[in-house]
């Protein structure tokens, strides 16, 4: 039983890690731009397809293809933001959120128009799990994912802490008007934020595509989980997004041992409700209403 629990924990961390990277992107956009960007699922899919093109058409290996995924999603994200969402700033966060929902539908169907619905796969090898301590197994690709998620988190943290643009982002997130007074251009910061947030979604989307399957509908499947992870961790908190994703992953995988696996999602939402009841702003949330 203990063995099963530990393995489920390991599986949960792995599953959560996949979701963590797009969740970071979602929270980053919320922190600086103050609205939930529901295009994030389709941006993850867009990145996955960009990486697919780089991998299969240009023959790029994993690392470069991931870079292409980041870049591709960033471009689409920024274009979408400027076409659909920015003009609605005065109408408020919820209207912007609805617009991003509509934008997500547009992006998903652009992918469908261009690529069709057939499932596609990357030309990258699939590895079996490594077994350690005789009973536990972990996948080499999954360990790389975990490392990459941590690395990205560290990079984002360093970027926010030490670079000028990063500090500007934090300033705008804290207090827009004060930031403007200090000479920071919120529009420029917004571009960078969306580019980074969307890029992270695309990066994560390709990681997910590697583990699962690549088709236009994948964005819609991911949206709910990404949003849930970000809310659980505290909307706008980057470490929160990672913590939220990992917690949901662990809760879901462990629950399989005890209840009907078909109800996995229900358990995740129950966990979210529980956490929010005791910590109404989420695990790491600090923002006021």
């Amino acid at each position, binding site marked *: 039983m203990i063995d*099963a629990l530990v393995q489920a924990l390991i599986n949960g961390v792995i599953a959560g890690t*996949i979701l963590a990277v797009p969740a970071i992107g979602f929270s980053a956009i919320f922190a600086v731009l103050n609205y939930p960007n529901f295009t994030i699922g389709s941006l993850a899919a867009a990145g996955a397809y960009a990486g697919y093109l780089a991998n299969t058409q240009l023959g790029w290996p994993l690392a470069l293809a991931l870079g292409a995924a980041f870049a591709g999603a960033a471009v689409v994200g920024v274009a979408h933001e400027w076409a659909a969402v920015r003009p609605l700033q005065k109408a408020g966060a919820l209207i912007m959120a609805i617009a991003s929902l509509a934008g997500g539908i547009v992006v998903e169907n652009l992918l469908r128009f261009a690529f069709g619905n057939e499932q596609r796969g990357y030309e990258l090898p699939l590895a079996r799990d490594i077994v350690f301590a005789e009973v536990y197994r972990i996948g080499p690709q999954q360990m790389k994912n975990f490392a990459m998620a941590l690395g990205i988190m560290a990079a984002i943290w360093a970027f926010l802490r030490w670079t000028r643009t990063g500090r500007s982002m934090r300033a705008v997130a804290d207090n827009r008007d004060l930031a403007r007074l200090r000479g920071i251009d919120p529009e420029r910061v917004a571009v960078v934020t969306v580019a980074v947030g969307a890029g992270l979604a695309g990066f994560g989307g390709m990681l997910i595509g590697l583990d*699962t399957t690549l088709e236009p509908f994948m964005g819609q499947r991911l949206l709910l989980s990404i949003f849930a992870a970000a809310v659980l961790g505290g909307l706008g908190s980057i470490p929160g997004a990672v913590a939220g994703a990992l917690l949901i992953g662990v809760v879901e*995988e462990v629950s399989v041992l005890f209840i009907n696996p078909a109800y996995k999602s229900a358990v995740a939402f129950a966990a979210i409700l529980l956490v929010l009841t005791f910590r109404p702003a989420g695990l790491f949330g600090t923002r006021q209403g």
Partner: protein
Amino acid sequence: MTIQQRRRTLIQGASALAAGALFAPAFVRAQANAPIKLGTLTPLTGAGGPYGPVMANTVKAVVDTVNAAGGVRGRRVELVSEDDQTNPEAGVRAARKLIDVDKVSAIMGTWASSVTTAVAPLCWESKTFLCTVSGADSITQLPHQGYLVRTQPNTTLQGRKFGEFALELGAKRVFYMSPQTPFTQSVFANIKAALEKGGATAELLIYDDKKPSLRTEVDQALRFRPDLIFMGGYAPDTTVLVKDVFRANFRGKLLTLGYAVNQRVAEANPEATEGVYTMAPSPAEGSGAFKRVAEIVKNANPDPYSCQVYDHVSMVLMAIAQGRDSSGAAIRENIRKVSQGGGRAVDNAVDGIRAIVAGEKVDYNGASGPCDFTDIGDILDCKFRYEQARKGKIELIRVA
């Protein structure tokens, strides 16, 4: 009247009739040449998206071939393809448009069981013929008055065949993993019964097909120490499952449906699908219809669904030729006259129509099986294709 007078009257009457027919109002003649309208309703978007487009394109290809050969008794066939978005609400709106605006005589290809069940009442109420590939047994139990045929074998037949094949592969402990679908419970019950007859055991696990990871579910499966895992889902979730099973180092056998690991899935995931066995309803070996579908979809191993819709449209067109009437009621009356009951064996619509026009009785043998239907629209029996994925290609083991 004398005999001569009667004969003269008769001849005059007959001439008048003939003249009248020759100079009959144009619209009466035009009706006889009005195009035949058919519709496809398949999932082009949504969860069933991987399947819908190929199905619609296959039907279009057959319609184009028939039109190129002169249509059905000189009448052109027009096809309208709508998207049901894998959602009964959208499917019903699309069906309403096909029936009331496009006035199609038949709707073909409905895939999701919930869409088929939602659309069926619209069809039988409006006397539109419905051909479906859906799996739920409850579909043919609906009061459809003969306006529905299903080319997918029912769960009793499928379950038994799967169980028997698993026994043949030497399985003693079978673990069945599937999302919750209308036929999951029934197929499992039938597999289990067949396996128990052969001294094997089986267990079931239902998983959520929207998740990107099924590792712990696979762990649960492996705890049962199965020698064969049966995967009952569709292509997107089976791809995830088959990868997680590979990663878990499972060395036993894997068995699934032909549409879950089809040629595209095998190509995209050669390592994970290596050695996976698949089963699909099938015609006899060397079937001409099967070869034609392979040409249409440009794939030596076409999806079971593509084969089924090929049969849908072929049978509908031949039924129209047989009945000299393109209404849904006429298709209902005549479909079994062209699909079964002996006669010249045909495997495509063009040959079938030609034979029917020449006055012959035909018996269609399709790409998905012999296409002989019971009164409630289920297929009587069919063979199965047993295939295996090797190095990213689906290869035939046998047809039986």
